[in-house]
């Protein structure tokens, strides 16, 4: 009756729950960064978070990832709170501004460690393929210390190329430090992820996304438009 997803895998038959932000307020120190944020991110959707410096983009991503608690409101994964929720944690890929790589490990070791910690241990061929996908073929055994900023970003993003099941990707400035080819690769990964029913929440200052937003159906959320100084219910 219903059409199968294009590249449907058995795991993809249960759709990903929606991420729901309900009247969320975020406090950083003694300042309210934003209040009254209500938004839903369903499977297959991409939400592009915009806003000036210091408007709370990264703080919102950290709230969604569960690293901090909102000042007010709720963050739900389907119908259950997302924070301290093992089901949510297993379906979340959060790539922060910091790459979480160790200078003394090689690119492969770094990727293998992150994959293992997040239960996406895929074996050496998959790791090699993921690194190659991000244009790091031939640099598998290079220590992270001697990689450039852009190449380090690619190693961190290679985690995305290991993903096979629908998941929620929360990406903090993923396009930063990437060159044209890296940007194109990331767009391909994002499109494949959305096609298999995954959802994406990302921040970016890059204006090239404006064109992508129009053509690939990115939704936009501008934190500049939210009230920041409204009184919060105590």
């Amino acid at each position, binding site marked *: 009756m219903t059409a199968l997803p294009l590249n449907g895998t058995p795991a993809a038959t249960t759709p990903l729950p929606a991420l729901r932000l309900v009247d969320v307020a975020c406090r950083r120190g003694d300042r309210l960064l934003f209040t009254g944020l209500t938004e839903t991110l369903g499977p297959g959707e991409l939400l592009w978070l915009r806003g000036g410096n210091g408007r709370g983009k990264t703080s919102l991503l950290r709230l969604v990832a569960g*690293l901090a608690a909102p000042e007010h409101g709720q963050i739900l994964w389907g119908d259950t709170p997302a924070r301290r929720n*093992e089901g949510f944690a297993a379906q979340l890929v959060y790539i*922060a501004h*910091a790459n*979480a790589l160790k200078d*003394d*490990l090689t690119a492969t070791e770094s990727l293998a460690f992150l994959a293992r*910690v997040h239960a996406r241990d895929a074996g050496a061929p998959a790791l090699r393929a993921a690194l190659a996908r991000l244009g790091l073929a031939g640099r598998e055994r290079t220590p992270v210390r001697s990689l450039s900023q852009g190449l380090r970003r690619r190693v961190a993003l290679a985690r995305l190329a290991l993903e096979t099941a629908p998941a929620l990707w929360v990406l903090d400035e993923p396009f930063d430090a990437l060159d044209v080819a890296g940007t194109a690769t990331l767009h391909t990964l994002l499109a494949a992820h959305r096609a298999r029913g995954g959802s994406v929440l990302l921040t970016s200052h890059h204006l090239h996304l404006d064109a992508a937003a129009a053509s690939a159906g990115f939704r936009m959320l501008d934190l500049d438009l939210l009230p920041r100084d409204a009184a919060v219910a105590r």
Partner: protein
Amino acid sequence: MNGAVFAAVYQRDLRLAWRRRTEALLPVAFFLVAASLFPLGVGPDPQILRLIAPGVVWVCALLAAMLSMPPLYAADHADGSLEQLLLAPGAGLAVAAAKAAAHWTISGAPLVVAAPLLGLLLGLPSAELPVLFESLLLGTPILSLLGGVGAALTLGLRSAGMLIVLIVLPLAIPALIFGAGAAAAVDAGLSPSPHLSLLGALLIACLVGAPPATAAALRIAVE
């Protein structure tokens, strides 16, 4: 507890220590240098040195363990690894336990091995050397576990090193008393087993109590 995270963190920390071998040797070097200062400071009287030897070895082991604590979580905190680790399901306990285990393997075990040598240097009778070894074998994991709590509590603070020492030393006093007391008991012609049993009980209490406390402190630190 997430076993995959435990194994991954433990193996990674050992690998990182192996890549920086000289850095990993610093605590045991400090241990040897600090303990060998005592004959110079106290004077070479064999009688006095023999009496104070267990205490000297234990205090120096305690300080060596504490000095190697500050980078335990700080490096992972700075490069974003700690956030990634804590995001994995059920990872807090696993990270705390793996870090303490890795710290003991890298910094604690060499102290245990070096302690009998220092005992010999200070003129400890050979009957007391195995007891000193056993007391440190039980005691250094306690120091790694307590130090983990201190390192997690002071994460992101300046002068974390001093604070760790100030937080952990009072907690480590029972271990110090029973540890140094075990060898002293042999010297007095008594059995060391009560001291060692109490040290074992302390170790069990720290195994149960320290990782949850560390995990809670880590969650606060990344928030």
